[in-house]
């Protein structure tokens, strides 16, 4: 009985340790808003914003001081009554479209969005050209002449010159 309980306890500890990184948030408790709905929106927006210091992290992930400033700024805009789109515009106005982790579709980013499809298309085109290059299948071998048939039959031991097999 005690063995089972020990096993269960060990398992619980292991699970907690494995989950620990999930709880290690960059967002500090003192930044969070009391209103859970607003806080939820702030978190969702923060996930979409690039940290200007850590480049490939969202400000929700980043521990940089600047990311914290931006998280606080987003929450202030939300408390002031901004819609999500207004908050995004506010940040893009100041930091440029670069602040968005997911670039918006536009004339200047069209190539970026189409690049995967274009590359895939180019790869398909390349392969189809390569396959076609392999050329026609080799020609059917010509039928054996009478002489060759005789030689073959002889070799196989069925020639007219020999009576029976061994």
């Amino acid at each position, binding site marked *: 009985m005690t063995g089972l309980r020990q096993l269960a306890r060990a398992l619980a500890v292991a699970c907690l340790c494995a989950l620990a990184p999930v709880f290690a948030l960059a967002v500090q408790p003192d930044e969070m808003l009391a209103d859970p709905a607003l806080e939820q929106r702030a978190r969702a927006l923060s996930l979409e914003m690039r940290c*200007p*210091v850590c480049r490939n992290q969202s400000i929700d992930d980043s521990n940089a*001081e*600047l990311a914290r*400033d*931006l998280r606080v*700024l987003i929450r202030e805009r939300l408390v002031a009554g901004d819609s999500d789109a207004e908050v995004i515009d506010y940040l*893009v*106005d*100041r*930091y*440029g*479209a*670069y*602040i968005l982790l997911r670039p918006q579709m536009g004339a200047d980013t069209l190539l970026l969005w189409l690049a995967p499809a274009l590359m895939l298309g180019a790869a398909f085109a*390349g392969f189809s050209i390569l396959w076609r290059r392999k050329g026609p299948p080799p020609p059917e071998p010509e039928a054996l002449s009478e002489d060759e048939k005789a030689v073959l039959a002889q070799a196989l031991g069925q020639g007219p010159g020999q009576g029976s097999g061994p």
Partner: protein
Amino acid sequence: MAGGIRKSVLIPVVVFLLIGGVLFSVAAGTRDVSGEGYLDRPLPEFSQPPLIGDERGLSAEDIRGEVALINVFASWCAVCLSEHPMLMRLAAEEGVPLYGLNWKDRPGAGRRFLDRHGDPYLATGEDAAGRLGAQLAVTGVPETYLVDAEGRIRYRHVGALTEQVWQEVLRPLIRDLKRPS
């Protein structure tokens, strides 16, 4: 058949070099785009408190009406210290109005920094919490903003303001901005 084998090696290599070359030239040609959303837009309205020990701070009105530089600095920033002699030279010799913004510094540290190393600024504002910095899209120190006579931000230099940056970037820009059109 030897030609075919060589081609199967050659084609991917050529394609790779082509794509890499195009992307590299595009990347080399573009400037760092972070924080350029505010370029060519008016300075925000602001009125920053003075450094501890100073009489006046820095407000948007102080800067409006002339081509000017705003230098964002902090006493804890080693690169700011390294560019400081250049700022002193600009203030003394080049006749460009230079304003300071003391960004995310401890109270009193900004004034002590300027007392020790010299004060090149016509006026200096304190931005202890980085609030104005967020308006200007400051991503670190030092950064230097070039503002035209209408109060629009025309250029932003990230990093130390060196003699080379001054000669090759800022001075030509300022000359163009001052030229009556």
